[in-house]
């Protein structure tokens, strides 16, 4: 047993550097933590279908991924935001031409208990609720009662996204934080269960978790805009305000092996994986 273990270890030690090198059968993918699961799911299925190819996926954040692409240490960068002008000019200096491919959409649903009369909110009101300046359901058209805020743990990309795009409304220099009294639950499922059982709660998670036991809230950008339900159609059309596109970036239009992988991600099968990992596909 021990010998066998040693053998495998030795094998790993000798083969891993081979993969990490600029092998023409391997692709290095790096970037957004939100997309790591999606990227890994793609890589797994892709490698199953193409046994000779090797795809390595690592996280680190969208910025890390893009800077690796610019410095030439990865082949594909995953990003949950558009590339910045500063990054483009940096890339040009290094002779890299970032090519953007939209591969999926990420929509976040805000949910309340079905017994809660509140069924629509503006982003402004959401920010108020989650930062703790609105504490009673009465203030947003509900029954008199304390609002119980449910959030994901700080390790979650969803937590970070919600903070940046709802609490801080996309302002990168914002200082808004979740109210200290917000309950931090360890999974989207835990939030779904607590919302289902408690009429004072409000929570958020990927659209995949909505069931009949929770009521998704229609959201409006501001008081004048129309209220939009979180649905795949509304995320696709861009009407739903709490959604974002997810990108892959390559150096120039993808060629060869990289092209094969990108095509796989955009294929019917690749887009099915998008749905399974709780994102919204760009093609149906």
């Amino acid at each position, binding site marked *: 047993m021990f010998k066998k273990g040693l053998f495998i270890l030795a094998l790993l030690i000798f083969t891993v550097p081979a993969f990490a090198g600029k092998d023409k059968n391997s692709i290095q993918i790096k970037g957004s*933590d939100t997309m790591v699961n999606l990227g890994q799911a793609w890589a797994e299925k892709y490698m199953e279908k193409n046994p000779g190819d090797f795809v390595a996926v690592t996280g680190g954040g969208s910025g890390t991924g893009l800077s690796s692409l610019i410095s030439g240490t990865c082949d594909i960068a995953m990003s949950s935001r558009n590339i910045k002008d500063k990054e483009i000019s940096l890339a040009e200096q290094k002779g890299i031409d970032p090519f953007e491919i939209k591969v999926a959409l990420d929509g976040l649903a805000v949910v309340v208990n079905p017994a809660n009369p509140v069924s629509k909110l503006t982003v402004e009101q959401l920010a108020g609720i989650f930062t703790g300046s609105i504490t009673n359901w009465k203030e947003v058209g509900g029954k008199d*009662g*304390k*609002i*119980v805020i449910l959030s994901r*743990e*700080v*390790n*979650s990309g969803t937590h*970070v996204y919600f903070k940046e795009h709802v609490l801080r409304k996309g302002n990168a220099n914002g200082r808004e*934080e979740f109210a*200290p*009294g*917000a*309950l*931090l*639950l*360890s999974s989207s499922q835990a939030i779904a269960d*607590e919302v289902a*059982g*408690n009429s*004072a*709660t409000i929570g958020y998670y990927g659209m995949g978790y909505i069931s009949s036991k929770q009521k998704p809230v229609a959201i409006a950008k501001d008081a004048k805009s129309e209220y939009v339900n979180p649905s795949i159609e509304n995320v696709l059309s861009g009407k739903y305000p709490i959604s974002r596109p997810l990108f892959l970036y390559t150096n120039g239009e993808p060629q060869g092996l990289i092209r094969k992988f990108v095509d796989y991600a955009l294929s019917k099968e690749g887009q099915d994986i998008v749905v399974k990992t709780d994102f919204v596909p760009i093609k149906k």
Partner: protein
Amino acid sequence: MRKIKEFVIEKLILVCGLASIFFVILIFLFLTKEGLSVFKSVSPFNFLFGKSWYPISEPPQLGILPLILGSLLVTLGAAIISIPIGVACAVYIAEIAPLKIKEILKAGIELLAAIPSVVLGFIGMVTLVPWVKTTFHLPTGLTALSGSIILAFMAMPTIVSIAEDALYSVPKSYKEGAFALGATHWQTIYRVLLPAASSGIVAAVMLGIGRVIGETMAVMMITGNAAVIPQSILVPVRTLTATIAAEMGEAVVGSEHYFALFAIGIVLFIISFIINVTADLFLHKRH
């Protein structure tokens, strides 16, 4: 030949004996090495007494006072519930219960100790949390009280078995002397046995508390994990242990957040060290 065999076995046992101490020292060194790095970016005072815990903000706010208070509140609540029940249970088993009931009770308590904490947490989440919510008319049942009740269940087996042991080891002559003086059974228990076994009972309580403060899974599931300074036992709290468990997975290695989690580990280590040493002191006082 026999001598060599003897020698080898003796040394082997010595190594095994030293191994545990060696590991403790290694763990402590590792914790210290990683944890102390956090004080490059935040002073020890601000770390221990800072009121906000926003580890991933820019710049991070690393104040663990709400977490310390959360841990202490849950532990205190668990102690208040489990000590009277646990000690009374020990007295009943050691002194009053007939042999048959005694056996059943002891087996039951051992069984309680064998339930994994995640199972207790799960049961607490589906039964206790809704009950706490409706009984106290709270906006949410994920509170320090829910955590205390579940943790009391976990501390009880430790308290009962060690306290019972302590009561059992009180010399029989004490009891006989009390009866000879005309004391009733209750008077004997209350005035003679409990004081005689007091150091053992205190040790039992301390070890029970030690188990409670280090418990992670159940509290993470039912206390709500909100990092606020608790104003009462009926609000959500976040404990030291739950913070480490929830955040370590994604903390970037080498970041302030990562070091801060190790520093929380040091704080926990120190707290349980104090509790264990106190328990030890009381245990040895007995002999």
